[in-house]
């Protein structure tokens, strides 16, 4: 599959994301925030970083970039979209995902190898994992506290849209230990920790993150 990876001004992790996409068996297609088309890609990754300097709110400016108009339209038609960290924030600001991400409750930037449980292995981004799989990938964020009102949280839980949950410690004050969620259809997934930093033994916290990028391949055979 052709997987687009968007670079916004201030993105940090697009090169790692491209590499992870390639290791996952796909062709990585670099996309620019100013692009008005998605260059025929089958899926899109919004990488981590500090797009537009996190000005106003994390992801608030990026959400109105030309490429996001295309991403929002494609997501509506069912294209798989993954937002990692800042990408998750952009998806929330775009209203493709409910809730919002606020400053960590302990007010410090956090960088750690984080254990997670995959709660929903039916999305196009998690189908490589077994339901309930426990994985360790890198978490690094300053504004990663997932919040939403109680009704939204209950709906997410009830509809199986909590994709991943923090284990051992809650690193940022996210409500109900939520690390990742999906939209109703399941094609749009936001994840605060970084699977693209855990795809090779040489660096990072092992290779537990690779499944996110091989899932696309598997889900095409479903």
């Amino acid at each position, binding site marked *: 599959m052709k997987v687009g990876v968007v670079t916004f001004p201030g993105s940090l992790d697009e090169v790692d994301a491209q590499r992870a996409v390639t290791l996952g068996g796909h062709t990585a297609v670099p996309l620019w925030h100013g692009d008005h088309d998605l260059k025929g890609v089958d899926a899109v990754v919004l990488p981590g970083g500090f797009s537009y300097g996190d000005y106003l709110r994390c992801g608030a400016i990026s959400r109105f970039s030309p490429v996001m108009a295309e991403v929002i339209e494609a997501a509506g038609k069912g294209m798989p979209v993954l937002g990692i960290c800042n990408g998750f924030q952009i998806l929330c600001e775009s209203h493709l995902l409910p809730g919002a991400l*606020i400053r960590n*409750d302990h*007010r410090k930037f956090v960088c750690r190898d984080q254990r997670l449980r995959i709660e929903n292995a039916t999305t196009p981004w998690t189908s490589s994992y077994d339901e309930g799989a426990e994985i360790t990938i890198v978490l690094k964020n300053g504004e990663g506290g997932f*919040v*939403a009102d109680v009704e939204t949280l209950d709906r997410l839980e009830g509809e199986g849209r909590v994709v991943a949950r923090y284990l051992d410690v809650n690193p940022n004050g996210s409500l109900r230990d939520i690390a990742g969620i999906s939209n109703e259809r399941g094609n749009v997934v936001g994840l605060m920790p970084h699977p693209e930093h855990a795809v090779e033994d040489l660096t990072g916290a092992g290779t537990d993150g690779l499944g996110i990028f091989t899932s696309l391949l598997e889900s095409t055979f479903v």
Partner: protein
Amino acid sequence: MARVVVDVMPKPEILDPQGKAVLGALPRLGFSGVTDVRQGKRFELEIDGEVTDAVLAEVEKMAETLLSNPVIENYAVRVEATQ
């Protein structure tokens, strides 16, 4: 010229870690009697011409679309007198 001010505040039920940090710093500096601090944002919009109802409606739209995130923030729009 006229100025329209948009105040954006985190909703009461949303944790405000920055406000908490300020609250924690005040006693260390010798200030007492403050029981809570909430930190928000203030936007000053310089408007070309009269601030009509149509202009205010437009600013409301700006506040809702870009200046605030209605999921976590409330906003208030008001006209400020300028010299």
